[in-house]
């Protein structure tokens, strides 16, 4: 068989261009990886993690199980395009091998096999024809859904679809034409030479019956040309568009299973995460800034997009509650919060070196004990919580060293959230030394914001860090305090930093159910809403925060509970401003029910 046809050139050029660019990109990213990451790759490459990755790649890059879980039509759309196209390639290869044995076939010979083979093939394997047509139909149904999604995203299971940039639109336009043109090309080929499966074959017969054969012959080449051009065009734009995710998700899954992660300092690995974003837009629906305030251009998908194309504005980077709801639903599993933090760190102001001179020699702690209590600044602004904790410590007979009752150095998390990572590290170092100096073995905090940075960023070897709900749960279990339950129902609001941030969901519930009746709202635990008072959003104003808080209160009260319980001073402050009902921290509930 002779594989020479000028119409294949656009495809060949496009494919070669794409291949070069993608390889060049990956090579650059790998070369730039920091040493620790390279070590991790060396350690992970011959481990079970690699095998697991293959399974995950099949599950997520082809089947798209996570998107299916989110929405059936949306999952089907992604799956049909990815798996359908992949199967067309696989069955296509099998087809050439079956027909031609082991003789050499160039890449475009596989892709345009029907064109080259139809005039010379004498016998057909119906099963191959059937499979090729079947998968083509699957892909076409996916393309059809993609069209529908552009007109009405709701029909495909998401409320908002992403607004795309020019390269995306160009790549997408080419992609939309690839498979309809393939159908037409193969149909016309079948109408002239016979063959084809239930789709192209039957359509071909129909064409042959109703259209003059001269017309069909004159259409043959233009269709194949168009098919080749649309493929080539798509490949040309692909490395610069969101479709870069098709390939990038594969190395990302491998690297992630080899334990590479983005950090607070930007690094080369981030590029894999950023370019693995398919801009599916699932994060947009999840974002309360969108749902409640109608802010539509700051969500993670836009943040990653703008960062990738170097058009990120400070106002976009800073307009985020960092609640982590988007990260929870991201089908690619991108570490959206960390990427945003490391970006903020690059865009930060550089403060004067003298700003933290006040650290020198300050230690305003008081009391003595193996248990340290760090109330946190938000708890100082909600003194009822602090007083409640003091009461609980007393009831439990605990000797407590109060780390910050007379003032302290900040835990560092607020600065970290604003991108001032260096300053935060200064505070972390100071506090680490302070905690060690007082030889505590347990550190209790009332603030999930502090709790998160203590567990994630502090080096506190030998010190058990507990959120006060965990501490209270433990002293309740061991019988050091007892409660007289009240006939009152509470719905528990999961604070972002405690729940999604640190994975503490059960202890707060355990404590509430020992003190009163616990009720649940539908969006709880991993899917809990953000109160809106987040420290990490520097753009929305207090009126907008209160609007979010009101929507959260409304949702919480749908549970039928009389009161709202939470475990974060900031959530408690924010929510109580949005309702007349009592909003209480778990420490307050417990201190009122102590016997």
């Amino acid at each position, binding site marked *: 068989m002779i594989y020479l046809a000028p119409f294949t050139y656009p495809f060949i050029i496009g494919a070669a261009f794409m291949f070069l660019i993608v390889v060049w990109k990956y090579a650059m990213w790998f070369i730039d990886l920091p040493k620790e990451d390279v070590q991790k790759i060396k350690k992970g490459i011959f481990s079970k993690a690699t095998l697991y990755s293959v399974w995950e790649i099949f599950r997520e890059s082809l089947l798209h199980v996570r998107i299916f879980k989110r929405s059936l039509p949306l999952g089907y759309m992604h799956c049909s395009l990815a798996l359908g196209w992949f199967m067309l390639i696989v069955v296509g290869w099998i087809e050439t091998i079956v027909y031609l044995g082991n003789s050499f076939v160039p890449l475009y010979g596989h892709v345009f096999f029907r064109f080259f083979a139809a005039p010379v093939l004498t016998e057909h394997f119906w099963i191959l024809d059937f499979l090729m047509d079947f998968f083509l139909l699957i892909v076409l149904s996916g393309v059809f859904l993609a069209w529908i999604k552009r007109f009405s995203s709701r029909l495909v299971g998401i409320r908002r679809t992403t607004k795309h940039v020019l390269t995306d639109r160009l790549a997408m336009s080419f992609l939309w034409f690839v498979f309809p043109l393939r159908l037409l090309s193969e149909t016309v080929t079948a109408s002239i030479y016979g063959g084809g499966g239930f789709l192209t074959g039957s359509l071909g017969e129909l064409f042959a019956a109703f259209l003059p054969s001269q017309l069909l012959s004159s259409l043959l080449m233009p269709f194949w040309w168009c098919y080749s051009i649309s493929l080539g065009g798509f490949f040309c734009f692909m490395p610069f568009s969101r479709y870069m995710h098709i390939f990038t998700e594969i190395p990302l899954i491998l690297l992630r299973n080899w334990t590479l992660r983005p950090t607070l300092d930007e690094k080369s690995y981030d590029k894999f995460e950023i370019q693995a974003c398919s801009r599916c837009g699932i994060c947009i629906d999840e974002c309360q800034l969108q749902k409640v305030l109608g802010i539509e251009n700051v969500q993670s998908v836009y943040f990653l997009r703008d960062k990738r194309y170097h058009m990120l504005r400070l106002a976009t980077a800073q307009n985020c509650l960092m609640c982590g709801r988007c990260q929870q639903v991201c089908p690619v599993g991108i570490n959206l919060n960390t990427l945003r933090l490391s970006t903020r760190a690059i865009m930060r102001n550089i403060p004067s070196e003298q700003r933290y001179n006040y650290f020198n020699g300050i230690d305003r702690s008081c009391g003595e004990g193996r248990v340290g209590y760090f109330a946190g600044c938000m708890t*100082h*602004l909600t*003194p*009822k919580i602090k007083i409640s904790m003091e009461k609980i410590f007393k009831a439990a007979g605990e000797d407590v060293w109060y780390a910050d009752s007379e003032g302290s150095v900040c835990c560092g998390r607020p600065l970290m959230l604003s991108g001032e990572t260096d300053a935060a590290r200064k505070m972390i170092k100071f506090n680490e030394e302070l905690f060690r100096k007082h030889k505590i073995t347990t550190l209790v905090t009332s603030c999930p914001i502090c709790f998160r940075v203590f567990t994630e960023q502090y080096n506190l070897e030998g010190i058990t860090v507990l959120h006060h709900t965990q501490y209270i749960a433990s002293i309740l279990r061991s019988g050091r305090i007892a409660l007289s339950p009240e006939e009152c129902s509470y719905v528990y609001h999961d604070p972002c930093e405690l729940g999604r941030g640190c994975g503490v969901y059960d202890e707060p519930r355990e404590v509430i159910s020992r003190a009163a009746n616990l009720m649940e709202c539908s969006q709880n635990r991993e899917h809990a809403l953000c109160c809106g008072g987040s420290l990490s959003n520097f753009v929305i*104003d*207090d*009126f907008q925060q*209160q609007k979010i808080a009101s929507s959260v209160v409304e949702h919480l009260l749908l549970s039928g509970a009389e009161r709202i319980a939470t475990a974060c001073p900031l959530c408690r*402050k924010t929510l109580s*401003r949005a309702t007349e009902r009592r909003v209480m921290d778990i420490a307050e509930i417990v201190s009122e029910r102590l016997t």
Partner: protein
Amino acid sequence: MIMQTDVVVVGGGVAGIKAACELCQAGSKCVLVERDSVLGGKLRGWHKLFPSFTSSSDVIEELLNELKQSNVECLLGSEVVYISSTLCRLASGTEIQCRAVILATGYNLFDARIKEEYGYGIYDNVITSVDLERMFHTGTISTLSGAAPEKVAILHCVGSRDEKVCQRHCSKVCCITAVKQAIEIKKMLPNSEVFNFYMDMRMFGPGYEELYLTAQKQYNVHFIRGRISEAAQLPKGRLQIKAEDTLTARPLIMSVDMLVLMVGMKAPKQNALFALATGLELQPSGFISSKDLFLEAVLTSVPGIFVAGTVTAPKTIGESISEATMASRAALKFIEG
């Protein structure tokens, strides 16, 4: 029950009373509706008025006398549940048909418990400006233990000019009230020390600036530019406050015996309900919008509904009373066609 009248005046504070008097004196029929069981509104809680230290009971008495002579029909203990320019429905089910309405529903005090960091309702000896006026009424200022405070801090702008509690507006009268109260404390307890923590001193009225100077020169009241960030309880009912003196750019920690919070004026929630029912426009602060700030200050976006007093913005007693006169005139003009 269905009643008929020319004008319904909603709210029996100083503005409402004055408006009702003016309407009756001009010969039109008028009903004054008040939610409380007594007339006089928020002024009843005040002891003396700035800047002249006029007794507030004198002002109320004068207005009530005028009301008695004007033969106004007063419905006390009556809450308005629905209002339009021709109908006023009360919680009791009574409907008042009318030709015009004057809204003089006033303001609510900001709930100081919302600024939990100051510890109102949590710590002893954190009080509001209203609590202090109550003490002036009784004639003694004392901490919870009964002792006279030696050191008092007065914090301005609690619930005013504070984005954090969605109260962007200035409550206008608290600065001068704080000056007045500081002087009154010094008059009663000459050996005490009084510190005012302010953002700006807004001495807009006649004699206010002079009073501010008097407070400093004659009474030795201290003024520190900076807000208090938080308060904490110390032993024996004392309080520790943290602030920043922004003129010296230094953080400041002070122990005091009493902390007075100058609570601001907040738009009542029912403004939004009235607006929804009638089409009245609201300002972002929640107060009702006047039709025009200059020429039609007592008119609203709805013909037949007029406004007087703090229903549109924080005002002084004098301003509220003058506005009531204007509103009643405008209402008369409206019903006479």
